[in-house]
Every structure is written in structure tokens, then in C-alpha cells.
């Protein structure tokens, strides 16, 4: 991720950071609540497959480029899977 950002201008970095920051500000979701959501999602997914909960990321975002005030935000989760075997093993 870092290397990817380093190639960008600081103007672009600022825009990208703000877009993400403002969306979570606007939905009024505290970092504590995000952490709770993350733990719960990890718990549910772990029932079915082995995941890397340490490196999982969740983010609230809006589709498209424009941060329209009226746009509906969605929750994105990136969950690295360690072992799919558990799905069949159960």
C-alpha cells in the first residue's frame, strides 16, 4: 500500500485520505463501533473458513468518485482467507 501511495502527488494523497475520512465522519460511526463490527464479522466468517483476522480491514465508502452528500455509503470488508479447507471440513 505504501509504495503505491508514494508515487502519487501529495495533492492526490490528500484527496484520497479525505474521501475515506469524510465518509466515516458523515455516517457518524465511531472507531470503537467499527472495531466491534470488525470483530463480529470475523467471528461469523470464522465459522466457515480460517481467516487472518489480524490483517482484515473494514471501511465505509461510497461508490463512484464524487463524495456526494446524498450518496448512500456501503461497508466494505477485506478479509484475507488462510485456509478454505474448513468449509468442507465441517
Amino acid at each position: 500500500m505504501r509504495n503505491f501511495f508514494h508515487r502519487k502527488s501529495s495533492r492526490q494523497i490528500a484527496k484520497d485520505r479525505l474521501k475515506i475520512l469524510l465518509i466515516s465522519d458523515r455516517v457518524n460511526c465511531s472507531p470503537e463501533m467499527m472495531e466491534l463490527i470488525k470483530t463480529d464479522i470475523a467471528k461469523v466468517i470464522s465459522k466457515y473458513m480460517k481467516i487472518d483476522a489480524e490483517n482484515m480491514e473494514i471501511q465505509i465508502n461510497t461508490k463512484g468518485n464524487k463524495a456526494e452528500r446524498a450518496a448512500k455509503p456501503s461497508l466494505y470488508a477485506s478479509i484475507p482467507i488462510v485456509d478454505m479447507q474448513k468449509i468442507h471440513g465441517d
Partner: protein
Amino acid sequence: MENQFSQEQKSSEVIVVTSGKGGVGKTTTSANVGTGLAKSGKKVCLIDTDIGLRNLDVVMGLENRIVYNLVDVVEGNCRVKQALIRDKRHPGLYLMPSAQTRDKSAVTPGQMVKVIEHLKEQFDYIILDCPAGIEQGFQNAIAGADRALVVTTPEVSAIRDADRIIGLLEANGFKQMDLIINRLRMDMVRRGDMMSAQDVVDILAVPLIGIIPDDENVVISTNQGEPLVGGASPAGQAYANVVQRVEGKEVPFLNFEKGISFWTRVTGIFHKI
């Protein structure tokens, strides 16, 4: 807005200048927009609502003429008229200073509304200089206002705070909010080291009413206590354009504002999100 009996009885506009973050140029903007409106023949009352940290009087160069202040008015120590300082350089321009030795809790939103209602009878424009933050001082400043100028600089922290303020203004029923982008440096934008006005407008999604270039003349004018609006300096010209747009006139954006798309120019003036 309402039925007018004659053209003279145009209802007055109450505008709050706010930003969330401190030090982005609320007071400078209040002083210049207020002075500019007075220069174009309007009756203008500037109110400093930053109780405990008053600054508008110094920026206006009127600090030596304070007798009574806003807190004196709400506490009934004086009449509204007694607290108004007339700016001798510009007919029609008045300042109601804030109290320096009190805190925000000395005034309530209800009291602010009352003072403003009283002032509305005599003035075309009432400009409220809002304190930084989102606490009581902010609530006091927005209570009597029907329109807002949101000031930001092209920096991450200022934009984040501006976004929060816009959300709070929306929640408080504000219909008209316009954005002023202050201290823009086109050389840095061209280098890719500063967000452009377009970038900021895309992120905040409110109509643009002015772009003020980073200009050392602002510091000089503050040193002198004389707002630079209408002068030859880049910031002075930019503020003069803001004033005209506040009055509802369509004014093209200046040269340093280049790089902004036609879309923003048009929507910046007419489009209300």
C-alpha cells in the same frame, strides 16, 4: 422572499461566517465581506460572536473605540445602539464587538436571536463572525442566521472540519451555504502539492462563492487595521468578487482561479445542493 411593499423594504440578510477549524480566515473574511458590502452602499452590521477571544475589532482597526459590547447588550447594561461602533471610513458600516473578559456561556442562542431581530430593522446585512469549534459559541453564532459562508483552506484538517460544520448547518436547517476557499496557492496546485479549488468543491459538495489567493497583503492589512477588499491586491480583488456574489451578482472567477471547470463556475453561483 416575502411580499414586499416597496423596493426599499428589502428584507435583511443574516450571514454567519464559520469554518470549524481556527485560523483559516473567518475574521478576515467577515471584515472584508462586511466592508465590501458597505462600500457598495449597503447598511452593514458586523457582530463578533467570539466571546472571550475578540478579534474582529482589531482586524477592523476599531479596537480603541469600544465602550459597550455584545454581552452588555444581552445583559441589559446598555441599549443595542450604544454598543454599535460606527466605522467612520465607510458610511453604513457598524461593528458590535464581543466581550473580552467573559466566556461563551454569557450569551444564549435565544438572546442572540433577539439582538439580531432588533438589528434587522436597521440593516441590509448582518454578518456574524463565528468562533472556532462546534460548541456553544457556534450555536450562538448560527442561531439567528439564515445563510452561511463556510471558510476553509485547501488542507486536510480544515476541509474535514468544514465538512463537519456543513453537516451541522444542514442539521440546523440551513438552506444556503456557500464555500470560500482561502489561501490557495496556484503554484503549489500546479506542482501537485495542493488541492485545487475544484478538488475541494468535489469533496465538500457545496456551491463555491469565492477563492482567495494566499496573499501577504492580508497580513499587511491586518497590521494596519484596514480591510483590503476592493484594493488592487489579489486578495482584495478576490474579496470584492465575493461581495458581489453575496449580493447575488454573477461575477466570473479571477485568473488565479483558473483551472476550475466551467461546471463549478456555473453551479458555484446558481446550484444549491
